[in-house]
């Protein structure tokens, strides 16, 4: 009889091998303590992925604990596959954002596609049908030789997966900056809809209950993907590339339908998708949460390739797979559903009372690890951190004024970071399901809930240059901007998910950025009652010691009770008044203006005054609810002038903006300053609005009128919309024209 333990664990676990698995000296010691012996090869593999940064959050956990995660709207905060928020009427929004940065750099199409597939699984594992996808993308400078190829591949990968799944991709954000030249960011978010009393969790229970594997077969894909996501790149990374995972959206679509069908019965005790670290993290998580053990019969796992070993099976990151614990005796019922959908189904183990993760092969044990210490004793680092030094405040008067504001506006609107993203979102099916009320091109996407008047609003936001200059303000600003985007559409913001993309946390400066961002985010989230219900951390986004800009992306979700009241950004009719809500001091530090005109990426970023944010936003939401607003847009990059340009271009309607005589801000700073907490709206009811604003003490002024076919900034300075549109719509198609 074959001794499988000897066969599969023949590789000797030396200190070198342990180090090669990314386990530090200190961790090595803890591991020996837990095991009371040297782990075998299979067990070592499991330790290495469970203790990777990606799975253990060892550098970030300490700080993440400071984020506010509670509120009466929260049904499930961080810790499950996705966050769950009550949206009333017995329904819940289930959502999360997740990065697939490293894989997308190696193979942009498949990396992005499997990122989208993974986040959708996180959401439907919880019993929710995905109803919308979003994405936040960061690429290197447009001049970098790889940028086009990466952009093209990532966008078609996101579309390829989401379109096939039939889930609309309704928005996102895209930036270019040289700091991302060799570390692009691909963050994908999914929002799903579930009945709030039918949420599924991962906690295993019921000693003896069957553990079931469903979905695709396991191959050797992406072994050590989680460890890769936790390591810096260097020039040898090409050579070390593990097998890339290939996505199969068709199978995932079947998996989605099959899971939802089974979920409509009461056969499932718990369910967990297999994401990073595949079978390992899914089984460990289920066992840990349920305070039980799990015994896996690895020879029963459906395999795609010959000769797979326990080590490979436990670490494979093959996509489109799920692990479930079923109620006893329900296997046949479940099997029938999965076979109808032509998916693999196998009973691969059972729940035990040992609190060990035990791996078997043809009845013989090939490895066993106690679960609680594997999870709890995993190292948590309070890494040394350094605060980012404060930057100088740059006075508007110290920044060069330009001769023609509209000429500059054209340059900015046609620049890589401000130009239209139509080239991207026309490759995404943003209409499938028939409920997209506000599509890409708006502040927030608005998606109606089937068979209701209600809708969910979604936005993803981050301004990395602010975060670099002042991580705390930047973190605050990202939360505020997402809150503002939802508000501008008329929705009530409910909760957020976050994707913390940073460089190497072992460098105190980088760790300091992380800490600052967390503090800023927390402050804003508390103020807005806008808690964090899920998230993801991606560290070590560095190549050869050069890190990305700190990029804590916020995915915000809100609810609007009647989608017919939602307001879009496009100007609607001639002769309406334009009102600017919020105070304009002309903040040019770290602005698009400063960068464009003087080539300076510096200065303190605009401060975020949370009281003002809250007051101005709540005021606007009330106006929208009262039907007083015809178009609305929050002010962000490029300030007032760029917001007005967005509104005019998308409404194909000209406008004239005049700086009020009462304002003593220099004109260039008035039109391009990036002061926060501001919105530009159009209305037929200006008098009513101004009166209401005065009553509530909200700064609001009529600053212009819609009409004509030009955009005018002040008296003598005009540009035709046609010219502006050509600059805005032209850049990306032209840039991408030479890419296959």
């Amino acid at each position: 009889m074959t001794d499988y333990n000897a066969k599969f664990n023949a590789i000797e676990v030396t200190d070198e091998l342990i180090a090669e698995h990314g386990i530090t000296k200190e961790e090595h010691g803890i591991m020996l303590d837990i095991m009371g012996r040297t782990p075998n090869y299979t067990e070592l593999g499991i330790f290495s992925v469970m203790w990777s940064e990606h799975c253990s959050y060892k550098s970030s956990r300490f700080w993440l604990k400071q984020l506010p995660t509670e509120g009466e709207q929260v049904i499930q905060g961080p810790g499950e596959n996705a966050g769950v928020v009550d949206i009333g009427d017995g329904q819940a929004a289930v959502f999360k954002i997740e990065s697939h940065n490293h894989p997308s750099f190696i193979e942009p199409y498949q990396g992005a596609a499997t990122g989208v597939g993974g986040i959708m699984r996180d959401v439907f594992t919880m019993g929710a049908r995905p109803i919308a996808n979003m994405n936040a993308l960061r690429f290197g400078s447009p001049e970098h030789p790889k940028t086009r190829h990466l952009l093209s591949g990532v966008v078609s990968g996101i579309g390829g997966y989401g379109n096939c799944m039939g889930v609309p991709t309704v928005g996102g954000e895209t930036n270019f900056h040289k700091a991302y030249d060799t570390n692009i960011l691909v963050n994908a978010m999914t929002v799903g809809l579930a009945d709030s009393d039918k949420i599924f969790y991962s906690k295993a229970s019921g000693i003896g209950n069957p553990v079931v594997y469903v979905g695709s077969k396991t191959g050797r894909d992406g072994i050590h993907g989680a460890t890769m996501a936790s390591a810096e790149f260097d020039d040898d990374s090409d050579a070390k590339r593990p097998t890339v995972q290939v996505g199969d959206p068709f199978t995932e679509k079947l998996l989605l339908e099959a899971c939802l069908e089974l979920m409509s019965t009461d056969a499932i005790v718990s369910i967990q998708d297999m994401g990073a670290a595949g079978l390992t993290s899914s089984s460990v998580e289920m066992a840990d949460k349920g305070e039980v053990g799990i015994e896996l019969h690895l020879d029963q796992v459906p395999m795609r390739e010959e000769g797979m070993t326990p080590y490979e099976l436990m670490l494979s990151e093959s996509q489109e797979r799920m692990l479930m614990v079923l109620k006893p005796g329900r296997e046949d019922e479940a099997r029938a559903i999965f076979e109808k959908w032509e998916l693999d189904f196998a009973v691969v183990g059972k729940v035990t009372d040992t609190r060990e993760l035990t791996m078997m092969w043809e009845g013989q044990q090939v490895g066993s690890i106690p679960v609680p210490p594997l999870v709890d004793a995993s190292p948590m680092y309070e890494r040394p951190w350094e605060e980012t030094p404060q930057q100088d405040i740059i006075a508007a008067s110290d920044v060069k004024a330009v001769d023609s504001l509209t000429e500059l506006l054209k340059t900015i609107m046609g620049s890589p970071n401000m130009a239209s993203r139509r080239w991207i979102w026309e490759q995404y099916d943003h209409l499938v399901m028939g409920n997209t009320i506000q599509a890409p091109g708006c502040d927030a996407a608005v998606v109606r809930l089937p068979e209701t008047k209600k809708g969910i609003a979604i936005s993803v936001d981050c301004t990395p240059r602010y975060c670099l200059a002042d991580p705390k303000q930047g973190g605050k600003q990202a939360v505020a901007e997402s809150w503002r985007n939802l508000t501008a559409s008329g929705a009530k913001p409910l909760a957020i998910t976050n994707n913390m993309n940073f460089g190497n946390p072992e460098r105190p400066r980088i760790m300091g950025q992380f800490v600052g961002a967390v503090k800023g985010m927390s402050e804003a989230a508390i103020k807005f009652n806008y808690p964090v219900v899920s998230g993801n951390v991606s560290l070590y986004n560095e190549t050869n010691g050069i890190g990305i800009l700190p990029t804590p992306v916020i995915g915000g979700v809100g609810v609007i009770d009647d989608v017919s009241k939602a307001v879009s950004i496009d100007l609607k009719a001639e002769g309406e008044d334009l009102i600017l809500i919020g105070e304009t001091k002309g903040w040019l530090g770290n602005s698009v203006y400063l960068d464009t005109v003087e080539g300076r990426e510096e200065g303190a970023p605009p401060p975020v005054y949370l009281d003002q944010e809250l007051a101005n936003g709540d005021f606007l939401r009330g106006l929208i609810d009262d039907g007083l607003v015809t178009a609305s847009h929050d002010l962000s990059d490029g300030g007032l002038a760029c917001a007005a340009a967005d509104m005019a271009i998308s409404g194909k309607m000209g406008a004239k903006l005049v700086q009020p005589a009462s304002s003593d801000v220099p004109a260039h700073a008035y039109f391009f300053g990036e002061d926060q907490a501001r919105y530009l709206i159009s209305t037929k009811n200006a008098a009513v609005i101004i009166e209401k604003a005065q009553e509530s003490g909200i700064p609001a002024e009529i600053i212009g009128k819609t009409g004509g076919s030009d955009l005018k900034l002040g008296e003598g300075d005009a540009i035709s919309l046609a010219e502006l549109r050509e600059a805005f719509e032209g850049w990306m198609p032209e840039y991408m024209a030479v890419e296959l």
Partner: protein
Amino acid sequence: MKAKVTITLKNGVLDPQGKAIEHALTALDFGGVDEVRQGKVIELDLAETDEAKAKTQVEAMCEKLLANTVIEDYSIELSA
């Protein structure tokens, strides 16, 4: 001369298309079919007439554009 480049997925890389074709063939009662893999073939006319040079040129095209060498292998056939 003419070049024919055949691009196939590397061993071990999941081939959803191949899998689906296999499935469909079985459903259509074509029995005994196994290991279906789908790849691409690209045919080109080259101005180059020297075989060795043509080969180098096409190899460069494969590495730069035609094949995705992270997941694909390629082979080149040349003919006059």
